[in-house]
């Protein structure tokens, strides 16, 4: 019972370029897995691969397994029984994913009718219930409104209601609060955490903000250049990071009550359109040796490093 990515690679079709370079993750139900990493590290591509919805022109290698059922290479009808019904997706821009010419109530009810096989009346009642649960006041009245009349935070609540309408077991939330006001972000995240906890769902919470996922998720995976470089219990990763990149990220964040300026990691993210030899982080790594530049460190003991930091 879990959503498993097994050595997933996402590349540009017809070229040797890989943007996601062998990611393995497991998400059991009831668990929250945080995915953190800089912009362009392949977080969204990994999430889209897990839904079988890569943009045309991208190629997928590796396995996607849902409760042991192989989904990679499955046909559309098989995927349609999974998307929305088993795995739901929450986007960064709530406004652009709601249909501007359909009332929000109808958009929630349609999904409930599709995946739960409810009648129109029952689906509508379900939609009102969901709106209540995600904290939309006066659902009876608001159900008849169009997305444009909602604020960003409310629109993301509606998107959550739509996502929940198929009673999915897993939720992939890709930067669900990045587009929202800072004051709204925390409330939406709290709602998300409560919702998945009370329903026993497994959630993948994606953010470029390590602190954000670390505060909320039981486990985290740190992405770098299309790879997981470190993964494990959040508490362990924060208190005793093993990969020099994770350690660098932790140093780089501004903290209250700490002396000294945050130390950003020197250097730049590698260009994945060129072949990477050895460890992609080696050029920026203070611990790098010859071996790091020539050999590829696999993920072992929760970290992909030949010279992990040991407490």
């Amino acid at each position, binding site marked *: 019972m879990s959503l498993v990515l097994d050595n997933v690679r996402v590349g540009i079709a017809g070229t040797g370029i890989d943007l996601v370079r062998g990611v393995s993750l497991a998400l059991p139900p009831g668990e929250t897995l945080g995915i953190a990493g800089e912009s362009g590290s392949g977080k969204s591509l990994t999430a889209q691969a897990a*839904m079988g*919805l890569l943009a*045309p022109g991208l190629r997928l290698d590796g396995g996607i397994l849902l409760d042991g059922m192989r989904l990679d290479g499955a046909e*559309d009808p098989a*995927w*349609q*029984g*999974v*998307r*929305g*019904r088993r795995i*739901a*997706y929450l*986007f960064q*821009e709530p*406004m*652009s*994913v*709601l*249909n*501007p*010419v*359909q009332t929000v109530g109808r958009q929630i009810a*349609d*999904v409930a009718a*599709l*995946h739960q096989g409810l009648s129109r009346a029952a689906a509508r009642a379900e939609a009102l219930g969901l709106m209540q649960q995600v904290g939309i006041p006066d659902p009876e009245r608001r159900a008849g409104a*169009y997305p*444009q009349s909602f604020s960003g935070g409310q629109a993301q609540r509606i*998107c959550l209601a*739509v*996502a929940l309408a*198929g009673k999915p077991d897993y939720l992939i939330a890709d930067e669900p609060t990045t587009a929202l006001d800072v004051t709204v972000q925390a409330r939406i995240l709290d709602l998300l955490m409560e919702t998945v906890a009370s329903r026993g769902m497994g959630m993948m919470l994606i953010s470029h903000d390590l602190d954000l996922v670390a505060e909320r998720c039981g486990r985290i995976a740190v992405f770098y250049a299309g790879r997981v470089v470190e993964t494990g219990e959040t508490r362990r990763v924060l208190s005793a990071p093993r990969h020099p990149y994770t350690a660098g990220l932790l140093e780089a964040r501004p903290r209250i009550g700490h002396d000294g300026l945050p130390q950003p990691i020197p250097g730049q993210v590698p260009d994945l359109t060129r072949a990477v030899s050895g460890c992609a982080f080696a050029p920026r790594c203070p611990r790098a040796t010859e071996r790091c530049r020539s050999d590829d460190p696999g993920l072992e003991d929760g970290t992909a490093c030949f010279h992990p930091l040991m407490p």
Partner: protein
Amino acid sequence: MAEASVESAVVRARIGPALLLGAAMAGSMIALALISLVWTPYEPAALNIRSRLTPPGLDHLAGTDALGRDIFSMVMAGGANSLMVGLSAIGLGAVAGIALGLIAGARGGWIEEAVMRFSDFTFAFPALLTAIMLTAVFGAGPANAVAAIAIFNIPVFARVTRGAAQPLWRSGYVLAAQTLGKGMTRIAVSHVLPNISALLIVQATIQLALAIVAEAGLSYLGLGIQPPDTSWGKMLNDSQTRLAQAPWMALAPGIALALTVMGLNLLGDGLRDRLDPALRRVR
């Protein structure tokens, strides 16, 4: 808001003078045609040799023809026939064209290529000439006139639909609908079509004007509406041998045709102007 929908753009649209004038012109002709279904001043087909070729006056508002039929009544009833042919042709053409345009956009690849080549192929023939050829081959009559006109509307609607829908297939809410497990047909009908419907209504208005002209052309040549029924084009044909003697025979159907066609064009253009911000977005 940048993401203003096409529909709310229509609702918010101020009604301009062109739009109003167009609606009044086309609307009054359509109203007369509809009234003819239940009432006309005289029986449109009733001959009355004693009052033949009467000029317009109090008894016969638009005069009578060579057989003494009341021209005003004939214009009303003929309008109903012209509109019937035009609306059926646009209805059929629009349904087939919109479906093809949506399939082309949804499937892409060789299916899209095939639909678009079919459109180019149909466009390459002058519409009216081919309609004449089709009715000449398959026989004159309203049903064949409808079919001939409909065929030329299929590529028009297919192209407009595909073009307007193109950015929508890559929009956030289509992607979101896919993550919810909705199939392509469901997405096309419930997410793509409603977002381009206003544009399609504008196109249909303008195509209806063209269809009515085409029907008039076919009937004028005797290939459309058949006696004892009449239509504006057929009345124009009847009038031509008596043009010097009884010009009113041409005047009434001519005015009715001109008002309807100009009215529909003004209406369509007016709606299009109102939609402009939204149009710029879908382009």
